């Protein structure tokens, strides 16, 4: 039996099921990160003193990572636009670039984390570092999740393009929505943790 409303619009919602599904999931993600941001506000405002992020963290590396993640958002939306233009080869290039940029982000984070650990800075060291590792760690898990789904659509999942291109294009759009959300979260994490 075919999965309903993968391509055709449901009359009651005005949407395909995948679209409403990913947005509901992102709504739950907003609350997840919202709870952590609220914890950050509570702990920071309650602390007698709080270090400026730049004194403990590597701002140039984080700026580079921000540029990397924003670039990956552009390549992601260009991958989807390539499918809309019926250019599968171009899609593969843009989607491949998105995955690679995600990998660059993770490698940079690996070097950042390694430097902290070598300095003896762990989550248990201070409230600031506990929040830093929790927020960036959870964000990294999301990057890994997004990369996994994108890699599937770059590789084996791309077979769907031959049999049902519209459904495949919709799937890539939904995967892109998650990826842009991951970018959006970093846009707020970067100044909050590194610059303030």
């Amino acid at each position: 039996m075919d999965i309903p409303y993968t391509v055709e619009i449901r009359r009651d919602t005005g949407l395909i099921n995948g679209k409403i599904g990913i947005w509901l999931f992102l709504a739950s993600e907003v609350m997840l990160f919202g709870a952590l941001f609220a914890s950050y506000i509570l702990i920071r405002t309650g602390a007698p003193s709080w270090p400026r992020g730049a004194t403990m963290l590597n701002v140039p590396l984080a700026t580079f990572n921000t540029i990397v993640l924003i670039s990956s958002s552009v390549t992601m939306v260009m991958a989807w636009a390539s499918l809309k233009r019926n250019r599968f080869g171009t899609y593969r290039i843009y989607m491949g670039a998105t995955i690679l940029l995600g990998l660059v982000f993770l490698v940079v984070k690996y070097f950042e984390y390694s430097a902290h650990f070598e300095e003896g800075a762990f989550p248990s060291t201070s409230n600031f570092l506990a929040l830093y590792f929790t927020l960036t760690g959870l964000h990294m898990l999301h990057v890994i999740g997004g990369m996994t789904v994108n890699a599937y659509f770059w590789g084996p999942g791309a077979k769907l393009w031959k049999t049902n291109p519209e459904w495949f294009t919709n799937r890539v759009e939904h995967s892109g929505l998650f990826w842009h959300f991951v970018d959006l979260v970093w846009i707020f994490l970067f100044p909050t943790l590194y610059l303030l």
Partner: protein
Amino acid sequence: MSDHTAADIDRHVRVYITVFVALMALTLITVAISYLHLPLPMAVTVALLVATVKGTLVACYFMHLLSEKKLIYAVLGLTAVFFLALLALPVFTVRDGYWIH
């Protein structure tokens, strides 16, 4: 966004590039401002303002929120209410048990 034609997509691609340039510029502005060592309340305001502008650009253009269906707006509106309530909770707490008394 699913019902857009290929011709529309060509126009959108130009917008994506413009938004990308704007996001890069705003990122550099955020970092540059941090080196001015503004007083904390001012620094927080400016940093969050720039981040909000960047986030809005991503949501509106890359996530196509400018042209979404009403149901998506309803879901996000409800989420926004709960999100703001969540952020407000610590504020009330630090005001010496404002809600408790």
